[in-house]
């Protein structure tokens, strides 16, 4: 998000999902697409059927890697080195789009200097990927007429997350694979409405449509609309900052809506401690999640089937969501809960319906300005859509005209993860998802058939390591990091390299996030869930 915003001026999937079918090469890095985004994967499969090349880079050989023309298994947390190595090759082989760079970007020289000081051999060494493979990777992406990048949490959940994203932005600009149909840098959103939540200002620093709270004009506009004299201009807190705030008594109350930080956030034991400490904890959810169990007040929200309003999906498409059934029991629409609480606090909100709210959004948000419920009938609209006549924007930065003006190159150097392996903690541990479960399992683990499919956590470990540890498939293992330890069963597989282990994080009973590192990216404040150092021992 922050990385793309810095490079391009807009932090969202640059191109539409459907465009993946029109591309010549797809480069997936840090995304278990077939498992986590089956509908995006479907487009990728169709692209393959049409002859597109698929490149997958991931420390773990995930399902979609099985379809790849080229699969690269780099060490966790070495994305920048891999990408820089790749760009080195692209420049050396003359695959850079010099015209595009000259016309549409800035700061290329600083970037170039960084790359010049780096060698493919160094990349090979850091990533433990052969020079030949890096060259093949560079050529396959660089030589394609149109190439798309697809990435996900494997890129962002690092202390270097923003740098990883900026590197991908560099790569796309270097080859001119941006601002055209079937190209771009495409972060896949983890939830159906993450994009929408961000669009609606669900971030500490912006109003809707990424209008900074620090910007006087925006501030004034919203104050006027809401009938108040003044709105705060200071930036709010991110989740790690909130937790820190609770710890040092600056934050007294916490309202958690549809999140389950006890399971999803790093260093889970610490999270629990903090949530127990906060004076007032309100949790709004549809199930009594591990987090809700700690709450002073639980507010019953509604499920997808009872919801009414709009979602904005990963490709910036604003879509109508309609309820199939009326809310069950005492549960209420989220907007009604917020409105009710606001009213009790003395700030009157008098919205009649989600459409009422949406019209206000459109009136205050330039990128949503042309969108109305009427226009959303059918397949919806992709923002930016500033006017009633605007058809929506399938892909951003058309013809190299970036949202921020010119595309900005960043010179990025490789930094190792916040925690690296050593003699005491000799294994790299990375986390992810499995197909049967969704996030912390608040919903999927309540589904009998899904929980039957994969009922418990497991640790994937290479046969070589298993042999060294003298442990059999399905047996229990004790895994510890500097923050905690868990006991889990193992699955022996060569999906992961020797020295690397993988564990899904959906399971509260074997909560791998007790082990993960809460160190976060300095800009995006996203914790380094994807890499930490652990030790293993027969349980």
């Amino acid at each position, binding site marked *: 998000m922050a990385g793309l915003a810095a490079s391009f001026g807009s932090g969202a999937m640059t191109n539409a999902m459907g465009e993946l079918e029109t591309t010549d090469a797809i480069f997936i890095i840090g995304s278990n697409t*077939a*498992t986590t985004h*089956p*509908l995006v*994967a*479907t487009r990728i*499969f*169709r692209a393959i059927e049409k002859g597109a090349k698929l490149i997958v880079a991931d420390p773990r050989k995930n*399902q979609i890697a*099985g*379809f790849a023309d080229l699969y690269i298994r780099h060490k966790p947390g070495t994305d920048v080195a891999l990408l820089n190595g790749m760009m080195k090759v692209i420049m050396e082989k003359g695959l850079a789009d010099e015209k595009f760079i000259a016309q549409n970007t800035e700061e290329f020289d600083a970037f170039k200097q960084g790359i010049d000081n780096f060698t493919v051999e160094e990349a090979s060494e850091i990533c433990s990927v052969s020079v030949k493979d890096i060259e093949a990777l560079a050529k396959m992406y660089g030589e394609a007429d149109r190439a798309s990048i697809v990435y996900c949490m494997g890129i962002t959940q690092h202390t270097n997350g923003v740098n990883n994203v900026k590197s991908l932005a560099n790569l796309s600009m270097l080859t001119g694979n941006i601002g055209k149909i079937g190209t771009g840098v495409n972060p896949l959103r983890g939830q159906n409405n993450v994009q929408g939540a961000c669009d609606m200002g669900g971030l500490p620093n912006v109003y809707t449509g990424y209008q900074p709270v620090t910007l006087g004009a925006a501030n004034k506009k919203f104050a006027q609309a809401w009938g108040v004299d003044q709105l705060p201009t200071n930036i709010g807190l991110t989740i790690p900052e909130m937790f820190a705030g609770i710890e040092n008594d600056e934050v007294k109350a916490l309202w958690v809506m549809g999140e389950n930080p006890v399971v999803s956030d790093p260093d889970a034991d610490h999270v629990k401690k903090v949530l127990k400490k906060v004076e007032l904890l309100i949790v709004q959810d549809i199930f009594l999640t591990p987090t809700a169990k700690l709450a002073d007040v639980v507010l019953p929200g509604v499920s997808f089937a009872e919801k*009414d309003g709009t979602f904005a999906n990963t490709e910036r498409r604003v879509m*109508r969501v*309609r*309820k*199939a059934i009326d809310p069950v029991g005492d549960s209420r629409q989220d907007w009604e809960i917020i409105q009710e609480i606001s009213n009790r606090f003395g700030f009157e909100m008098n919205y009649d319906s989600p459409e009422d709210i949406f019209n206000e959004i459109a009136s205050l948000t330039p990128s949503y300005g042309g969108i109305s419920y009427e226009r959303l009938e*059918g397949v919806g609209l992709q923002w930016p859509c500033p006017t009633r006549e605007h058809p929506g924007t399938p892909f951003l930065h058309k013809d190299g005209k970036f949202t921020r003006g010119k595309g900005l190159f960043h010179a990025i150097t490789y930094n190792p993860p916040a925690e690296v392996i050593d003699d005491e903690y000799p294994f790299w541990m990375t986390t992810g998802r*499995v*197909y*049967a479960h969704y996030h912390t399992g608040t919903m999927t683990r309540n589904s009998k*058939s899904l929980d*039957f*499919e*994969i009922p418990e956590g497991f640790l994937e470990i290479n046969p070589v390591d298993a042999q060294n540890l003298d442990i059999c498939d399905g047996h229990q293992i004790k895994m510890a990091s500097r923050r905690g330890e868990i006991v889990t069963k193992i699955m022996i597989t060569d999906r992961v390299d020797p020295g690397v282990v993988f564990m899904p994080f959906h399971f509260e009973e074997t909560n791998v996030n007790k082990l993960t590192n809460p160190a976060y990216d300095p800009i995006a404040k996203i914790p380094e869930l994807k890499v930490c150092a652990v030790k293993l021992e027969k349980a």
Partner: protein
Amino acid sequence: MIDIVRQKISKLLSDGSVKGVVALAMANGHVAPCLFQKEDDLEPLCLGDTKKPGDARYPLNKVLITIARQYPEDVFGVLVRGCDERGLYVLYRLNQLEPDKVMTIGIACPQELAKACECKKPYPDELVAGEKTEGITQQGVQDMEDMDLSKRFSFWKNQFSKCVKCYGCRDICPMCFCRECSLECEDIISKGELPVDIPVFHLTRAMHMTDRCIDCGLCDETCPSGIPLRLLYKKTSKIMNAEFGFTSGINKNEQSPLNLMGPAPEK
């Protein structure tokens, strides 16, 4: 067309010949299955496909089975297209619905929809509204058979590898009614693994569809990974026809050769 259907339903409800009618309704902005029980409530009735062919097809028979299991003594009406009626015949055969407890309101599909569905018989035997249109000749199975073996192998291996085991094919299938499913039987299908067992997972389902599939195409429409499941089941139908002269759902009272003792019947 909808007026004729509405009149028919209204009549069935008013003269008490049915307890309710399973059909489609436009509610909250989308088309969904609905049990109509009063003639005054027929306003939201719709026939689906409001925007384009195949836009809103539902396995209404599946809804009807659920209702009929709860109210075995009552008669219900159901809105049927050609495919739904074929499905009913199979469901009668398999004792999931009783012919004298079901009254159909048959509608023919417009040519455009028949084409989109690749439907061989886009109208029910008992037609209430709509014009009978031409069936579509299907080519897919033949094309696949014409490929050489290794091509077929890599085609299906790739297709099956895309499966995310969502069970959408089964859950939408109007011919699937078991309480316990082989696809969730650990002895046959290993769980917790992707890709699913190739080809065991999909062939197991295909074998179960062998004498049941009525070629409605909902599985294809539903599959989020775009696996051409229907092609697989079409092939089973073709085998059944070639080997045993049997076509699922074409004749109301025909028993499946797989459920008859003794050798295959003479063609």
